[in-house]
């Protein structure tokens, strides 16, 4: 497969994975906060492990450029959050959610998908194996995001299929951003460490800003600790083996 098509395909996989978040709602109307917390903890570990892989790859191409890119990634996610009006999404507050909240959560997820798309595209600059691992990490991370969207939409009467559709929609920036990010780091080679750093910074920041605080709210910290550091270890192991 042509490399550009492969980049778009990987981005599409991560977007489609978001739709899996709607699956539990085919069986239950609501999911517990604890289940969502554990899903977030698992995703947090995978994303941290993937980010470490990106940082290691980036520093091979230039440590200062990578750290600059990481800080820009951090800033991008921070500004995106400010721009969408502090759309902190909490699984514990789904009851009585209105149309504004439904719109907000889809918007929140869509905006922050941009940086994940950049992560997939930039990771291809470090080789297909690295890109594969980043794709897996982001795809797994997208499942609880789809769960979050569906947890808000489903109690308002949205069908399971529509929940899955909105979840996938929120991640469409991923295939759309992955290709230009890849082209940038491939054609302007010095941009590679900046791009990789951007992706790592954005992912680490999302873990600390969204996933871990959500996880700590609804599950005991010892369990979050084991799950997050355990999944991080598994991701690091895959990186070493591949």
């Amino acid at each position: 497969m042509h490399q550009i098509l492969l980049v778009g395909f990987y981005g599409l996989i991560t977007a489609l994975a978001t739709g899996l978040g709607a699956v539990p709602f085919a069986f239950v109307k609501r999911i517990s906060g604890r289940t969502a917390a554990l899903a977030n903890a698992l995703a947090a570990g995978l994303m941290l492990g993937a980010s470490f892989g990106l940082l290691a790859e980036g520093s091979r191409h230039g440590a200062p450029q990578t750290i600059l890119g990481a800080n820009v990634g951090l800033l991008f996610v921070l500004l995106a959050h400010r721009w969408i009006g502090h759309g902190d999404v909490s699984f514990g507050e789904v009851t009585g959610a209105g149309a504004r909240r439904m719109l907000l959560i889809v918007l929140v997820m869509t905006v922050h998908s941009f940086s994940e798309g950049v992560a997939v595209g930039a990771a291809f600059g470090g080789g297909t194996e690295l890109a594969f691992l980043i794709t897996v990490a982001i795809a797994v991370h997208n499942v609880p995001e789809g769960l979050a969207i569906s947890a808000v939409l489903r109690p308002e009467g949205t069908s399971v299929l529509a929940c899955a559709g909105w979840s996938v929609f929120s991640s469409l920036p991923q295939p759309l951003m992955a290709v230009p990010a890849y082209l940038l780091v491939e054609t302007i080679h010095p941009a590679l460490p900046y791009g990789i750093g951007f992706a790592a910074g954005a992912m680490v920041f999302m873990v600390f800003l969204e996933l871990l605080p959500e996880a700590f709210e609804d599950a005991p910290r010892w369990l979050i600790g084991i799950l997050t550091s355990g999944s991080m270890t598994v991701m690091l192991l895959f990186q070493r083996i591949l």
Partner: protein
Amino acid sequence: MHPAIVTLLASSAAATASALGVLPLVGRARVPERWIGWANALAGGMMFGTAFALGAVEGEAAVPAAIGTLVGILFIAWTHAATGTEDLSLNRLGETGPEYGYRVALVQTLHAGSEGIAIGAAMTVDLPFGLFTAATMAVHNIPEVTVLAAVQRSRSVSLATAALTGVATNVPQVFVAVATYAIVSAAPGTLSWVLGLATGMLANLVLVELLPESYRQAGHTSIAVVASAALAMVALLIGWVG
């Protein structure tokens, strides 16, 4: 100078540097809770960065390192469960009894032991990496003692005593660092396991002890900024040195 002596001196310096943590309390009885949150996040980010660097040492066997990491994660969970400190709030500034103080000191001592393993293991990789890890731990110890000293100052303990207590809780770091260095030097085949062990211990300590408190104390956004920036900086600087 023999590397074992260097390990002893470097880890002693890291433990002693922790006394600087009382400086923010000079001239004031209490520090704002937000400061404590930021101190925890700074220490947590640096510790995560160190964990990443230890887990990313090239040339080490991947599977033993991963098993070591999982053992480290479970060991921390077990020590918290065995000492009844798995859900202990470490930063209570209000009325507390002596029993609370003993439990906090116990947690800090176990925490310092894990850091000692990290320093000892890094010293066996190579001297610059070991010295950098010790320096990172020294800087990281400072905000940790700020938190501990803030708790003590709220109980009218003098600054000098708070500084000495801070150093005392970090003394295990020295003994464990030297012992780890000696063991790994005598049996080089254990290096991958020990690096993994240190990685798992540090990662889980951040998740169980440092981050949950900090989110409550200073809010999600500022904690995410401080922790991400500290993590990225340490990971890249250690990558540079290594």
